[in-house]
């Protein structure tokens, strides 16, 4: 077994300047002209440039054919790492050895030109992503079919909907066949159906024995696709190893306040008002108690809660619409939920707190937390004993088939008389 990527002591330093990284020649000339004067006054030192190490002493090995997820908070160096491995930017220290052709999907649709037709853009975009003309020709029909834009392939893409553009762009990217594929969060495009198609394609890629590095904030995605996970924290490798335990550790450590420098508000934990974290009756009202530490007062605050399924997709979400005005301290939020007809299993709570408005009115997200403690639903499945394909909801439904051909299908909901059932 070969090593596909070996990274040793990799570091990347950025200078944080007060203004933009680039200046103007005019400023340089003015500075040069006034240098004698400033030298005389002893103020000629360069403006203070703060140093930020986006990556620091990062090292790991990735085997051929391994699918590796990279997790970490915003600013932890994930994107910088991908940029270095795809040679967009150079490291400051250390080195990486990369075996084989590297394809990077840091953004889909790079180089799309609105005036050009879909067909023309497929070729230009393919070439930009590093495909040979031969390869593009070979995959052309597949790409167009994958994107589902056959009828519009000779129309300028400016007439495409944004969804169509994204689908076409991703279709090109999905047919890239490098030995190593670097992917940055691009799966967050399109509708659910298209995302599923993309995930399938990604799975194919890894089954063909290609090495994949995937950066994502969606733990569900990482869990589904990756065997190994590297957790980056403030530019360093905090943990690396098998996917499940590393993700668990990451999520547990992820409950720090968003702003690392300041000790801000912080969700501490939650429990059911009836005690514990397991619900045995989902058809009657219940209350979730959330504990919080506030170091500063919150005015016009907004609190939101979302229940996530095993794939980290939100199943139910809601906001407390009345603005919250809270002094510093340790308040307890009570969330009353009238019923939760979800299938039995483990769910997770995701909580958010905004200050000075909500997410739509310009409020500031001051804390976001996905609780480590799962919410267990211990109820009998009423729909069907097979939990695999029955969906998310746990509502009674009966499928009646009369005769040898299905002449009528009746969805019968609990407590609803038969005569109001909807025939199809």
């Amino acid at each position, binding site marked *: 077994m070969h090593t596909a990527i070996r990274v040793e002591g990799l570091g990347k330093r950025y200078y944080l300047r007060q203004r933009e990284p680039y200046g103007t020649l005019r400023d340089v000339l003015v500075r040069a002209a006034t240098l004698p004067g400033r030298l005389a006054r002893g103020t000629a030192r360069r403006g203070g440039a703060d140093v930020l190490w986006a990556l620091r002493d990062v090292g790991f090995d990735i085997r051929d054919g391994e699918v590796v997820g990279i997790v970490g908070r915003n600013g932890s160096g994930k994107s910088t790492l991908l940029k270095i491995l795809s*040679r*967009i930017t150079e*490291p400051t220290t250390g080195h*990486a*050895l*990369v075996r084989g052709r590297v394809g990077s999907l*840091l953004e889909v649709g790079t180089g799309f030109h609105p005036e050009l037709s879909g067909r023309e853009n497929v070729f*230009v975009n393919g*070439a*930009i992503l590093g495909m040979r003309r031969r390869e593009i020709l070979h995959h052309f029909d597949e790409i167009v079919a994958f994107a589902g834009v056959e009828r519009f392939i000779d129309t300028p893409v400016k007439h495409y909907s944004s969804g169509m553009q994204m689908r076409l762009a991703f279709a090109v990217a999905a047919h890239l066949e490098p030995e190593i594929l670097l992917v940055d969060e691009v799966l967050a495009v399109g509708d659910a159906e298209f995302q599923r198609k993309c995930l399938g394609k990604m799975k194919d890629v890894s089954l063909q024995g290609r090495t994949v590095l995937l950066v994502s904030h969606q733990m569900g995605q990482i869990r589904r696709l990756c065997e190994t996970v590297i957790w980056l924290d403030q530019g360093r490798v905090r943990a690396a190893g098998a996917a499940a335990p590393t993700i668990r550790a990451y999520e547990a450590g992820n409950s720090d306040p968003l702003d690392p420098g300041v000790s801000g508000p912080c969700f501490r934990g939650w429990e059911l008002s009836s005690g514990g974290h397991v619900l045995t009756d989902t058809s009657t009202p219940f209350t979730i108690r959330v504990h919080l530490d506030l170091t500063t007062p919150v005015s016009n605050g907004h609190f939101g809660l979302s229940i996530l399924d095993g794939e980290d997709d939100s199943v139910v979400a809601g906001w407390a619409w009345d603005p919250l005005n809270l002094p510093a301290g340790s308040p307890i939020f009570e969330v009353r939920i009238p019923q939760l007809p979800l299938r039995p299993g483990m769910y997770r709570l995701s909580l958010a707190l905004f200050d000075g408005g909500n997410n739509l009115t310009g409020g500031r997200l001051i804390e976001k937390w996905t609780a480590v403690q799962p919410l267990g639903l211990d109820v009998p499945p009423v729909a069907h004993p097979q939990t695999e394909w029955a969906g998310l909801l746990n509502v009674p439904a009966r499928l009646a088939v009369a005769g040898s051909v299905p002449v009528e299908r009746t969805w019968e909901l609990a407590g609803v008389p038969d005569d109001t059932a909807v025939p199809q």
Partner: protein
Amino acid sequence: MSPHTTTPTVDLPIHRIAPAIGWVPVRLGEIWEYRELLYFLVWREIKVRYKQTVLGVAWAVMQPFFTMVVFTIFFGKLARMPTDGIPYPVSVYCALLPWQLFAFSLTESSNSVVANQRLLTKVYFPRLIMPIAAVSVGLADSAISFVVLLLIMAYYGIAPGMAALTVPVWALFAVAAAIGVGLWLSALNVRYRDIRYTLPFLTQIWLFVTPVVYPSSMVPAAWRPFYALNPMVGVVDGFRWALVGGPSPQATIGVSALVVLILLTSGLFYFRRTERTFADIV
């Protein structure tokens, strides 16, 4: 260990990613490796330019033509500029063609890196491709306005001789000069964003120190070697000589060619040295 590895055990190339220190080799071979990308970028530029065929072509024809008309009226008729016996419109158009190729290519390649910043921060490719691809539209435009030049020459009853076969050489000379300067300016433009505002000024001044509206024979012979430090002097002289004869441009060409060579080489090295920070500051 992953159980589903089917990668053939061929020896794949191993690439080492490490910080480069100081001056780095130019590696023109890598551009050859990426020739298909270069081809598609050029193709895209030209396709977009001439997508609305009528407007695209008309633009390429009108610009030098009307410049020629205005120059003919003011410099030819009113100022009675000498032309070594060639009709003034032909003389000035012969010079405008390589000049506009140069000026357009210079502007486009100087802006190329900043203009492609989205590409630059998302994908790797040899960065040199950007200023090189940027000159393609200028070449296409020139090919179109060359046809107009032949029509004007036919109108004045001037038939090009065998020397006309060297026209592509002069065109490449102009492009090389533009890329040489463009490499410097495109790299500087990333760091100093006011470079782009100095470009119109630069090309305007440059036009008047180039023998476009006047023949280079107006410049005293003793000054010619210094005059030819402007590489466009050699290009324009060569172009005129190739199409309408006149004095042999030997005196200026050697110096101009040397300057182009120096600009191009130093530009390549400077560009390569600074390109590693492009993605960080663009």
